[in-house]
């Protein structure tokens, strides 16, 4: 029983880490540009498929390094060509546009790589279990959690220690003043979008080894990421991180006792948060 609970808590933590990684990217874009990026799951799939294509040439580690950057590059292009035109307009339009993009990306990956699930190679030594008692504790699972932690730490370091991060945070508070102070807001938003998509790409490379590689791989992650943002509080990145881990662990624990409700529990959590604290756990009052 203890093993079962531990297993599901760890599982929840891993899934929660993915939710958090996705949701942090979404949150970055939402905070600075006011765009709900519905195509985020699509970018995750692009990251995963790019890694799949690259692995035979550069190996798993090379793909892990390169695929998220390539995904971010695609994201920057998309922002440049399409999304930039919609800033300052009703959020309805950017939502519809990314909605359409999500369709196109899903169909596009199906067209290029096929609809069937593809084999995804991860290094053999990562697949070994680390302990004979806790059989589920494979190297890959631990590796994923560590890597997500490093990525999140890196993101927060960028945001607090670099000039780009400072500007992103300032723009989140008051974009107009930042623009008046001489910062090129167009480039800032462009880079910020790329940063958000980088997180999605990284999540994709990692998730493919766990969830299996298919065109709809992002679908099961996008809604929980929304819930993570709402639970954590709009406008707060630490909140998003907490929200993601929280709903992941909550659904993991629920799996032990009531497997069919594991998906529903995060929505219950969201309803409770909205009822008691509409701005979310760490959200600022009056921002939305």
């Amino acid at each position, binding site marked *: 029983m203890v093993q079962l609970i531990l297993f599901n808590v760890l599982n929840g933590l891993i899934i929660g880490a993915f939710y958090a990684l996705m949701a942090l990217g979404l949150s970055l874009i939402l905070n600075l540009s006011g765009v709900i990026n519905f195509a985020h799951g699509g970018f995750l799939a692009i990251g995963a498929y790019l890694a799949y294509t690259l692995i035979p040439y550069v190996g798993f580690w090379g793909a892990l390094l390169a695929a998220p950057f390539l995904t971010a590059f695609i994201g920057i292009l998309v922002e440049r060509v399409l999304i930039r*035109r919609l800033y300052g307009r009703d959020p309805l339009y950017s939502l519809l546009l990314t909605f*359409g993009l999500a*369709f196109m990306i899903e169909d596009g990956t199906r067209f290029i790589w096929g609809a069937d699930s593809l084999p995804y190679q991860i290094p053999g030594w990562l697949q070994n279990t680390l302990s004979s008692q806790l059989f589920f504790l494979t190297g890959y699972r631990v590796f994923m959690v560590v890597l997500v932690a490093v990525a999140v730490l890196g993101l927060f370091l960028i945001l607090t220690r670099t000039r780009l991060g400072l500007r992103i945070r300032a723009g989140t508070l008051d974009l107009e003043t930042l623009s008046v102070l001489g910062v090129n807001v167009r480039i800032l938003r462009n880079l910020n979008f790329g940063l958000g998509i980088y997180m999605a790409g990284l999540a994709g490379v990692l998730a493919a080894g766990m969830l299996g590689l298919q065109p709809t791989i992002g679908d099961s992650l996008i*809604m929980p990421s929304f819930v993570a*943002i*709402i639970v954590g509080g709009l406008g707060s990145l630490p909140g998003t991180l907490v929200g993601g881990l929280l709903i992941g662990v909550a659904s993991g624990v629920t799996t032990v006792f009531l497997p069919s409700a594991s998906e*529903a529990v995060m929505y219950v959590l969201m309803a409770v948060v*909205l009822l008691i604290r509409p701005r979310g756990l760490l959200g600022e009052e009056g921002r939305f």
Partner: protein
Amino acid sequence: MDLVSRRRAGDAAIWLLLVSAPYWLTHVGGYVELGTRVLILALAAMALNFLLGFTGVLSFGHAAYFGLGAYGVAMTIKYLIASTPLAILVGVAAGTAAAAVVGPLIARLRGVYFAMCTIAFGQVFYYIAFQWRSVTRGDDGLTAWHRMPLDFGFAELDILNNNKAFYYMVLVVFAAAVAAMAFLLRSPFGRTLLAIRENERRARFLGIPVDRHIWLSWVISCFFVSIAGALYALMNDFVDPRALRWDQSGNFVIMAVLGGMRSFWGPLIGAAIFLVLEDYISSHTDNWMSFVGLFFVLVVLFFPRGILGIIGRRAVS
């Protein structure tokens, strides 16, 4: 012609086209079922537009209440009682009740936050329909039931086998719902909603309870969308979880935007264009999704005001 008489002429033309549709559709390459589908999804898009265009609140989760209406109908006929009108009542009650419960949780939120929460809450019902296999049959959907002929006591209308009869039944429901929406929008309540759309802060200062109005508008909108959902299930004699998934919500929004969300009839025109295109393209290619996606992108970039929005602007200037 002045504006009022032009509008009346437009209304008359639309009703004339709808009433005669079963007779001219087949001559222009369509078929009666396509007309029925346009009516049903147009009702859903117009219901969404009650909230989107006339209250100024962005909902991306209307498919949930559409689907609840559909599941209500299917389950009533399959498990409880084989009666079409009763099934519609149950479906609409289910959709409206769910919306009334979700409403207070989100009525305080605005803009993107509201949109996100409607999406997330919409998915709840999708997961229930998907997971609760013993009742909803999960992904396979509810089959092995069909709509029942309408029995008026003195006469019977065979909507099951006569597709024109079913079209006219749908048209009657559509007309009643549309008339009710038009009445509500013209009432002081509807004008208040417009005031909230135009300037929420001013409306609040005038003493209007804005949150309660948004909640009411949300419930009314979901009420009408669940009527459309009920008819949708009757049309297909089938319902599956895709009826309440988020892409269905997106379809409603794109129909409203394409037709023109500031105009009353816009969503009807948007629905007609969307469904005719869908019918044509999906019979020619497997990559229908790419085309829908491209369609969304093109509409947003080039027709953000919608077709009637563009025409209306020309007429005024």
